[in-house]
């Protein structure tokens, strides 16, 4: 009951018009920033930190966390409508969301993304409130070998991404992994493949690569097929998903929310991996796996529920232990410090009104997001009816400024253009681009944890550590299974 009282106190903090205005502002900023390629959740929150400096600490953190949770939904809007994921994790949403738009069902794609995000976000926050401390303790116990196993499990999802050609999907993921080895090796301190350039010292940033591979490359592909006619998509249906369609994906949303929250808790895993893994799991357990990649509502729901629920998960280590679990957490940690607050167990004791205020605000923010999203969808959907001759130049301009915004660096802009060309070539010859993103996201996690585990205990650790061994075995089986199935059907 103590918890109940504390939550009530949290809602008490929200009384008055100021906190509500702050939440609504945060959600609007979050949705728009999320939808803008380049302003990933962490960048969006980071850019608003200076802005929040002048606010009282409680309100400032409510603003920033509202942005955080809403931006994960915002990413899905551009992913569904123009195949340009606004956030890294929405690259999974694009796999099925954009086909829905192409079939004239943009309303359904956006609608299911919104509902899945709301439920997922809520589930993540609920788990955060109820189990933050015990979950954080468990997460600490995982060793580098376990992290390595989890990362490999993430890599194994590639098998479900190559629609026609798994070989090419694997090449794409290896390309991403190899690209990620460029830059300083944080284990040994050696700079690798930098060709003596300072700009490459920290390697390629994810966001410019993501924008290039998805957004810029799409423009190139469309330009290649340019007919000169400014054809607009003939039928744009803003009909929302029916209740029946929602019921069909309810289990997917629930399962993906749990997967997302759990993966979010691991410091360093994050929304993108959560989305990839839950998409993979959903495809494997689905009754119609052949629909995935061709506009499956289940696919969109799985990705969005997972990435939104991971927010709650990622806040677990930050609030319970003062350890940032994601890039956005690291920024939030700075925001706490700016207001002379230190997140962690002592914050629950010393300033409970802040902690429970954030909890309550996250719950409210989810509802605000649902309402604003329902209204917003009607507006967003009009993007599809912008003539291509206007839309494509704007996509390029957004991509360029978005790449620049990440690090205020022109090098990132050139990287974005370069990845755009690579993405265009990849697509032209039927190599999927989503695995490249997966490779870039997971590259460090795989390599660093592998080497850390070996430095600590030698190669035998992967057999001795029972959890790591089990997960590795599952990863291996889940990787081989599609090949096995293919081989069996071919034999018949």
């Amino acid at each position: 009951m103590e918890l109940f009282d504390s939550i009530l106190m949290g809602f008490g903090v929200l009384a008055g018009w100021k906190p509500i205005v702050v939440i609504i502002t945060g959600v609007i900023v979050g949705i728009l920033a999320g939808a803008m390629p380049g302003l990933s959740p962490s960048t969006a929150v980071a850019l608003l930190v200076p802005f929040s400096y002048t606010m009282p600490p409680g309100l400032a953190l409510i603003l920033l966390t509202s942005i955080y949770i809403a931006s994960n939904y915002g990413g899905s809007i551009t992913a569904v409508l123009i195949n340009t994921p606004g956030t890294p994790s929405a690259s999974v949403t694009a796999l099925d969301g954009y086909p829905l738009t192409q079939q004239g069902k943009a309303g359904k794609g956006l609608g299911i993304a919104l509902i899945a995000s709301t439920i997922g976000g809520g589930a993540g926050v609920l788990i955060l409130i109820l189990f933050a401390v015990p979950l954080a303790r468990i997460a600490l116990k995982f060793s580098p070998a376990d992290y390595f196993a989890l990362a490999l499990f993430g890599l194994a999802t590639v098998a479900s991404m190559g629609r026609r050609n798994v070989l090419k999907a694997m090449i794409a993921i290896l390309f991403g992994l190899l690209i990620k080895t460029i830059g300083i090796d944080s284990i040994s301190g050696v700079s690798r493949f930098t060709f003596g350039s300072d700009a490459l010292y920290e390697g390629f940033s994810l966001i410019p690569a993501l924008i290039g591979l998805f957004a810029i490359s799409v423009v190139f592909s469309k330009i290649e097929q340019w007919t000169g006619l400014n054809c607009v998509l003939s039928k744009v249906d803003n009909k929302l998903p029916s209740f029946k369609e929602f019921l069909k994906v309810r289990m997917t949303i629930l399962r993906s929310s749990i997967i997302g929250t759990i993966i979010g808790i691991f410091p360093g895993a994050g929304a993108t991996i959560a989305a990839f893994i839950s998409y993979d799991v959903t495809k494997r357990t689905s009754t119609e796996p052949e629909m995935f990649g061709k506009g499956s509502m289940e696919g969109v729901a799985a990705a969005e529920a997972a990435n939104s629920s991971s927010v709650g998960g990622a806040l677990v280590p930050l609030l319970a232990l003062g350890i940032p679990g994601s890039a956005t957490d690291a920024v939030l940690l700075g925001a706490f410090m700016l207001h002379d607050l230190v997140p962690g167990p002592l914050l629950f004791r010393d300033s409970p009104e802040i902690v429970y205020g954030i909890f309550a605000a996250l719950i409210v923010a989810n509802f605000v997001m649902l309402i604003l999203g329902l209204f917003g969808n009607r507006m967003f959907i009009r993007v599809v009816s912008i003539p291509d001759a206007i839309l494509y130049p704007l996509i390029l301009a957004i991509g360029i400024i978005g790449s620049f915004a990440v690090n205020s660096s022109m090098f990132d802009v050139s990287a974005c253009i370069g990845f755009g060309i690579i993405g265009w070539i990849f697509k032209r010859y039927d190599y999927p681009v989503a695995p490249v993103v997966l490779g870039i996201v997971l590259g460090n996690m795989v390599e660093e944890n592998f080497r850390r585990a070996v430095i600590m205990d030698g190669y035998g650790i992967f057999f001795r550590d029972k959890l790591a061994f089990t997960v590795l075995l599952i990863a291996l089986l889940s990787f081989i299974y599609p090949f096995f199935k293919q081989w069996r059907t071919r034999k018949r």
Partner: protein
Amino acid sequence: MGLLAYFSEGTGLALLIAGLFIALALLAVVVLRYGKREYFGQIMAPSSLIGLCIVFFAITFSFPEEEAGPRAVPRLWIFWLCVLSSMVLIQIFRRKAAKDPAPGRLGFVFLMIALLTGYYFAIQTAGYFLSTFVFLALLMHILGYKNKWIIYAVSTGWVIFSYIVFYRVLYIQLPLGYFENYF
């Protein structure tokens, strides 16, 4: 190993990269001239990846050698990337692979890439705002949008939007180029 270490940095590396470029160019000529023309891209894509792998593999020799050190993991990726790329090539020669897609308006794409590159340099000299306006207006014009007023309105609108949101509210120091000293 001493020989490989020579190619890992400096002149050796430059020679290696130049050599690989020549090899890829020769391959391109051979493919175009003597058959397999319809597989040109399908052959060149994995071949370029193998070329990239050779360069990266050579560079790994400049890293310190230790157990589970900086060499190990890149080499693992390089190994599999080469194996899988070779498998794609084998598929092509066993005629199991798909042909290249029919070429579309490639010239148009190259023009677009050139424009983007020009835009990239223009940002650094003429500043973000001016070059963005010109870039957007020019591109919309090239793509054949008829209504001039809408072109100017959208371009100006974007420039104003990026000035207010990015430059003013979010404090992102968009490059001003030569105009830097006037602000």
